[in-house]
């Protein structure tokens, strides 16, 4: 039984499934969900670096997403750049913002950081709505017709799907890389006990800042991917609290601080979200968020480690029970 479910095999199967998914389920609806799923997985995995591994709970990560979303379209509308070319600028801005937030708050207890993330995200959202340079409340639009391949406006969802898949794979590879190195160990130590970590020479504040910067950079990329696909951004779709919420709940549901937790969380929540939006119709988004709130509270109260922890607790018992039945 354990052989059949070896982790390596599961990963290979998963990767294969993701690769062929849009070819097998080629309808527009399925591809759309696929793209949404990948984007959500990228955002949540990015959040996971600082929120899951390091335990610094940001509830305003949309500020980085929004930066990543606005910058490409800004460079396009103001100076005609292909949106994709401004991605490095967006990353730099996101890292800069992460430093502004991290510097003062990381020397205080964890709650300050969380509060600061909400406050700054809201601050930026409201401010963006008043600033004409970035489109104020109306927002910005991207190229309607491609001027060349570099504008990345595809009519089919397929290229976006594979582009996002590559980015997700890259992000997971980076996360896996740091997970096994000193940086990853230090992150987990910080999450577990900053006090003990300090006593062992871990440079706590600097490590947290690095984690936040890395997380911010990838979240910004997620935002950029989003606008490249949708071609439109406004304060709410860029900096809204619901974007922050989605990142957190997806990572936490699957298992914050695990490599594949965000993926699993997205696998469950994105189809669920699509379903509730269809069932509940117009009032759908309201009910979806009631559901999200409820799920978050349940996770916090009963299983903060998410499905990953739940599986680890339940699986040995299941295996034992299955073995008993076989021999009974």
């Amino acid at each position, binding site marked *: 039984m354990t052989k059949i479910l070896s982790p390596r095999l599961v990963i290979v199967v998963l990767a294969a499934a993701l690769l062929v998914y849009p070819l097998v389920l080629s309808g527009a609806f399925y591809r759309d969900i696929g793209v949404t799923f990948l984007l959500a997985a990228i955002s949540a995995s990015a959040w996971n670096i600082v929120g899951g591994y390091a335990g610094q709970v940001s509830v305003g990560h949309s500020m980085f997403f929004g930066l990543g979303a606005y910058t490409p379209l800004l460079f396009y509308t103001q100076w005609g750049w292909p949106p994709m070319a401004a991605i490095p600028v967006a990353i730099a801005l996101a890292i800069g913002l992460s430093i502004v937030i991290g510097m003062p708050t990381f020397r205080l207890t964890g709650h300050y950081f969380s509060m600061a993330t909400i406050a700054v995200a809201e601050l930026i959202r409201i401010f963006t709505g008043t600033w004409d340079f970035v489109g104020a409340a109306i927002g910005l639009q991207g190229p309607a017709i491609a001027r060349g391949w570099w504008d990345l406006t595809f009519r089919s969802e397929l290229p976006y799907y594979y582009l996002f898949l590559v980015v997700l794979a890259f992000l997971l590879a980076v996360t896996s890389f740091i997970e096994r190195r000193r940086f990853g160990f230090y992150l987990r130590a910080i999450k577990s006990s900053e*006090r003990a970590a300090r*006593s062992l020479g871990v440079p706590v504040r600097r490590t947290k800042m690095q984690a936040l910067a890395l997380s911010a950079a990838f979240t910004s990329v997620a935002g950029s991917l989003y606008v490249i696909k949708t071609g439109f951004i406004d304060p709410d779709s860029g900096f809204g609290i619901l974007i922050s919420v989605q990142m957190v709940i997806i990572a936490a549901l699957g298992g914050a601080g695990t490599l594949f937790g965000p993926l699993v969380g997205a696998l469950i929540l994105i189809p669920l979200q699509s379903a509730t939006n269809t069932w509940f119709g117009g009032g759908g988004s309201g009910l979806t968020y009631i559901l999200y709130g409820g799920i978050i509270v349940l996770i916090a109260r009963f299983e903060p480690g998410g499905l990953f922890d739940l599986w680890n607790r339940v699986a040995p018992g299941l295996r034992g029970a299955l073995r008993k039945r076989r021999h009974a």
Partner: protein
Amino acid sequence: MPDGGKLLDATNVSKKFGEFRAVAGADLAVNAGDIIGLIGPNGAGTSTFFNCLAGETVPSGGRIVFDGKDLTRASPEAHARAGIGRTFQVPTTFADMSVIHNVMVGAFLRHPHRNDARDKARAVLELTGLRPDQPARSLGTPGRKRLEIARALATEPRLLLLDESLAGLTPSELQEAIALVRQIHQSGVTIVIVEHIMEVIMTLTRHVLVFNQGHVIASGTPDSVVREPAVIEAYLGRSHRRPPPDPSPANGGG
């Protein structure tokens, strides 16, 4: 600073919390190879002084010099880098990580590459007799205390500060722990230990500082200090929650 090769030199250390003076003008000189005990009734200032040495508490006054470097206001991280390791009175292991991963966090200080850190961790675990792959949370209190010692050892400290790391153990566990500390000491690590268990103080340490109400009231070999009237009065002369230090090995001191 010309101090005749003292490893740690704490002079006139004091700490006030608001109006309350936890430590008043304490001195401690530690030579390389020493094994020194800090004792005192509850609230005597021993823990506060200890935390000043470890860098967790910044003293209100005085100086702490380690290996020629002034660490008075230095952070705990800087202390660790300088070569001071410590354990915590209430074990603070990384519960979500395995035993070996716990120790690796310490080992990474001097061995940035994972394989080297892992090798170092394994070596330390062999010394302390812990199984590497179990989750830290599955350890009982004695195991956790042992893990904390291992973890601190992995940072290759020259000075190891043990904060009641031998409290709450059964008699046989206590003997094992004493043997471990002795072994660590013999490998060249200088040790300062806060303890309430008389057997530990009497058998392990060569020099003892006795605190009471923030002051050092006695300083000398364990035998001489235990006979001093001031010390006896400190322990027996006032009502407190902790019973006076009991020379019998079975008493964990509470």
